[in-house]
């Protein structure tokens, strides 16, 4: 009631010409400046930013892809290296086993050879000893027989049979004792 007391309420709804002109000027200036300068500038900057961000995202995606490829290559290399190492280890083990086996076989063969040689040597020694002994015993037996008979045994066949007899007896006695 107090507010409208001045009686000019309806005048508010009738615009003045100069007010309309200034309002139009203000709006037109604002529209032109916004349309021609402000918005294009902001649009340009925002587009550039969006482009840059997109570029960075693309770059990051490419880098991620590269990293994944590198990891794949690394895993592949690691896998092949592991397989290689396993193969080398297996080969080394096999070689070692072969070397050990060969060494064992060689050692065994050597030992057998030494044993055979020793045995042969022993046999030869034994034969030689038996031969020597036989000869010696023959001689002793012949000497003893000569002394007993009072004559020298000149026949080699007799002397030999006497020696053999003596050796057999010795052998018999030895076998009996053992």
């Amino acid at each position, binding site marked *: 009631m107090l507010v409208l007391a001045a009686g000019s*309420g309806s005048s*508010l709804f009738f*615009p*003045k010409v*100069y*007010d309309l002109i*200034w*309002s139009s000027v203000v709006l037109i200036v604002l529209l032109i400046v916004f349309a021609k300068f*402000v918005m294009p500038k902001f649009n340009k*900057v925002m587009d550039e930013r969006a482009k840059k961000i997109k570029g960075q995202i693309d770059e990051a995606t490419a880098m991620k892809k590269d990293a994944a490829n590198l990891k794949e290559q690394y895993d592949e290399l690691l896998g092949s290296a592991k397989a290689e190492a396993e193969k080398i280890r297996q080969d080394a083990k096999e070689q070692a086993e072969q070397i050990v086996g060969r060494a064992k076989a060689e050692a065994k063969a050597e030992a057998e050879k030494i044993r055979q040689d020793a045995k042969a040597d022993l046999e030869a020694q034994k034969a030689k000893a038996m031969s020597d002994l036989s000869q010696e015993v023959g001689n002793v037996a012949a000497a003893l027989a000569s002394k007993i008979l009072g004559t020298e045994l000149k026949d080699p066949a007799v002397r030999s049979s006497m020696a053999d007899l003596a050796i057999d007896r010795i052998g018999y006695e030895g076998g009996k004792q053992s």
Partner: protein
Amino acid sequence: MPEVLLASGPDFPSVSELLPNAPLFHGTVFAINSIILIRLVATVLILLIMCVAAARAKVVPGRFQSAVEWVIDFLRSSIVYEFLGEERGERYTSLIVTLFVSIFLFNFCENIPGANVAADTTIAMPLILAVWSLITYWAAGIRTKGLWKFLKDELLPKGVPWPIYILLVPINLLEIIIIRPFSLTIRLFINMVAGYLLVGLCFAATQWFFVSTGWDLKWIGVVSLLGGFVMTCFEMMVDAIQAYIFSVLTAAYIMLSIPDSSQVGAGDPVKASKLQAKIMSKKAKRNLSKVKG
């Protein structure tokens, strides 16, 4: 008795204050009163703020640029793209941003000490803004459909029995020519006038109760002072809301005037393909001019 109350009571604001004399260029069509002066100063400030922000705009923004970009982005996404879509809305982004920023800052002048009145508290400014909105949605409709098709779509809605058209045609014509701009004008103007009177009323009462009454009534002054602060905060919200409503309604009227490329010609494949080709051609031309530019 009322005269006594008026004489001895608070100095309440009057609508006559919203019809000030024009001391500058008095008697000419370029006369300037205090409200127009506030409007011109506000316009210079808007141009200064936006031009400085635009001129200094960088890809990596500072706080000020971020704030301005936030406003632009908000208007673009929540009004323009929401109502018109990205394809159709691109053309009208600048208009909507201009409307919102200028209306909001004109409204906000009522909260600035020294101005104390919104720069659009005379009916002329809301009226011019509404007329521009009217021109825009008419131009949008005529450019897209042609005058006859635009008027036909607006005045003769499909699926209505023909006798109803006798009523509908004048109502719709009235709506697209008078009611829409009038409602835009009155809504903004009355809100600003009401805000001015309410805030002025609170502070006038505060001043009167503090200065001209006894101690027993001064508590009313405290209440009215608090009321003044509350109303000022409320008015700040109203300033933004009114700017938003004006912008939204303008976008909505444009949306009603131009066909949605996904809907128009839906029943007619030839028309749909022609429209699609037209849109594609326009887009290509725009991109070409951008590249050349």
